């Protein structure tokens, strides 16, 4: 049953339908009785009447006698006037003659006119019929029939709204599965205006890929409101189309990344979109001491920020190809500590960290700790999959046998602050 149809409305339809059925069944019954009896009597009664008055000449009594006699015949055959229908809605037909010599007939509900020949004159016998209606059965049957019909008719698919249809049209172009398209279309109760539609023509290949992928992904289905996403997509697409004239809005978006981003609970669609854009970009703001991955700000504590910046610096400046070998546990790396201290001192680093570096140098433990903090911060914000691009790759140093680390990103995708002080 159609979900838009409430129970109350159904009851109203049912009630009206019961009335219609009662009326229809009564009309059909009445009409059929009238027609059948009329036909039967025309066939049988007409010749009988003609014969009965064959030898008649002038006796007025004979007329009333014949009428009385025929009425008696009708009455006697009343007992067999039962229909053989399963549901006897109409019972006990009864016929009686009003008059045998009527000239003109008038339309009346329960009067039948039987034409017959009196000599050469055409006469009409006026016969009235009565019957008893079995109301109880009639109402029950009507209720049942109404229930069945109304139920069936209400389960017919309701018409689609204009927006629904335009959505369907779009999804049809995308060759998206019928049922899914229908489901989505009914959820998207936003008019797909011509403006948007035009843009979608450009972006549809991408949307198709995304939707197809999403519709096959159970996790996405569960956690993402696809309809909402599609709406967002349309608006974004429109924005981008207007901004760029040409549709390049989604060409540089990685589907895999987007999916990962969308599944991240603390990222909205726009953020996901930014993150999914290729290539991955990392930028540092030295004034605010913040780091942004694809323009998404990642909250970092002061000290890990400087460590991260130092790794980025090494990568960008291509010092040892960006690699920083972990100091050994016993001998801290005072060389690197010195360089780090330049950053910390110049950009308002934490005094406690400065002290530590000055006194103990760069210790393996501190480096590991801060790298882990950076990793945690990224994963907390972006999730493991997306974070990986911005984090470290590690290799065992063949000379020292210790691990060395560097940023995975390419040099050109790391944006260091322009006025960053050179440390060497």
């Amino acid at each position, binding site marked *: 049953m159609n979900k838009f149809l409430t129970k109350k409305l159904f009851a109203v339809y049912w009630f009206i339908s019961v009335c219609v059925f009662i009326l*229809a069944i009564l009309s059909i019954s009445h009409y059929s009785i009238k027609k059948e009896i009329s036909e039967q009597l025309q066939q049988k009664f007409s010749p009988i009447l003609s014969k009965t008055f064959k*030898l008649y*000449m002038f*006796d007025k009594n004979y007329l009333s*006698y014949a009428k009385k006699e025929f009425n008696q015949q009708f009455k006697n055959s009343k007992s067999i*006037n039962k229909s053989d229908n399963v549901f006897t809605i109409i019972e006990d037909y009864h016929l009686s003659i009003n008059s045998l010599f009527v000239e003109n007939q008038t339309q009346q509900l329960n009067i039948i006119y039987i034409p017959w020949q009196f000599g*050469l004159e055409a006469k009409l016998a006026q016969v009235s019929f009565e019957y008893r209606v079995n109301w109880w059965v009639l109402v029950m049957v009507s209720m049942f029939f109404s229930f069945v*019909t109304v139920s069936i008719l209400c389960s017919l698919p309701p*018409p689609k709204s204009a927006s629904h249809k335009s959505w369907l049209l779009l999804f049809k172009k995308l060759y998206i599965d019928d049922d899914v398209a229908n489901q989505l279309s009914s959820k998207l109760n936003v008019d797909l205006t011509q403006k948007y539609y035009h843009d979608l023509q450009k972006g549809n290949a991408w949307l198709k890929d995304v939707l197809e992928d999403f519709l096959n992904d159970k996790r996405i289905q569960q956690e993402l409101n696809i309809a909402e996403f599609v709406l967002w997509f349309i608006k974004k697409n429109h924005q981008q189309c207007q901004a760029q004239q040409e549709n390049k809005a989604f060409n540089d978006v990685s589907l895999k990344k987007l999916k990962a981003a969308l599944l991240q609970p603390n990222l909205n669609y726009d953020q996901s979109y930014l993150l999914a854009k290729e290539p991955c970009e990392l930028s540092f703001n030295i004034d605010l001491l913040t780091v942004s991955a694809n323009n998404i700000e990642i909250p970092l504590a002061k000290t890990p920020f400087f460590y991260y910046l130092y790794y980025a610096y090494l990568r960008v400046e291509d010092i040892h190809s960006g690699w920083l070998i972990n100091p050994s546990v016993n001998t801290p790396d005072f060389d690197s500590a010195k360089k780090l201290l330049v950053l910390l001192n110049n950009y308002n680093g934490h005094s406690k960290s400065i002290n530590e570096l000055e006194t103990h140098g760069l210790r393996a433990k501190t480096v590991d700790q801060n790298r882990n903090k950076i990793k945690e911060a990224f994963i907390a914000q972006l999730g493991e999959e997306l974070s990986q691009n911005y984090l470290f790759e590690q290799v065992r140093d063949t000379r020292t046998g210790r691990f060395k680390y560097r940023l995975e990103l390419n040099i050109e995708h790391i944006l260091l602050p322009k006025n960053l002080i050179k440390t060497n």
Partner: protein
Amino acid sequence: MLKQASGICKVVKQKYSLLSYNQITYKLVVGIAYLLCVLLLSLIFWQKPVSPTLSEITFYQCDVENSLVSHKTLNVLLPIADHANNFAEMLCDNKLVSKYYSKVKVTWGGRSELTADELLKEQYQLLWARAESLQGMVLHLDDIYQEVLPSQAVNMFWLSNVDTAQLTPAFLANRVIGLVKDQKSFSSYLVPIASLKQQGFNLSNLSINYYDTYKSLYDAFKRKEVDLIPSGNWFSSFVDLDSYHKIAIGHQLETGELYMAKSIYSLELSCELVLVFSQYNPLFSESEIEFKTSQHCEY
């Protein structure tokens, strides 16, 4: 594989176009579907009443008052339906009849419908019929039936709606004569035919229309379908005889004798029956002819 896939896509497209009907079509479809359902389901209740058993009315029956016997019926056969029930009621009220009968049944039928079998079995105890036709049916009629009242002869005439009507070839040349189909009918076939033969007409040269009943004959006359019909005074109920032109027919019409079955005959009863039968006298008296009574009864 690719072709197959695109084929599937086409099917999908078609399915969409099926779904995309608007609000008005939807309402129309639902409305029409509903009405069809109502009509089809109501048609289950098309009634087929068993037709009543009917038969033509050919007799009148009544119970005799204060009857002294049981299950004995006095059967009477008359050639006309008029006054039959009156006649029957009078017999039922009759004291003498009540001595012998518990019921009276007066039947009417065309004179030609009586069969020899009915005569021989004495199905009718009282019979109004012509001697000629009865004698033609059985030998020794006198052994079975006793005549209780002689036949009354009545005058007949041709009736025409043309004032100058006369039985001449010139007048009848382009006129139509109306008769009754029943070739045993004295009044409307035999007597008028005899009258025409007497005038020397060749019947095959005359245009004659035949009708089923007297009523039809007179209806046709009133409609001027025919110009000349045989008639007598007793037909005054059908047409106003005085407003038409009459040509006398020399031959008188015998209306038939009243017979009583020999097996029940008694003078007393026969006289009583004749007395009751006298209710038909007006039929004959209009003919201005002497009324014949039974010779044996005293009134």
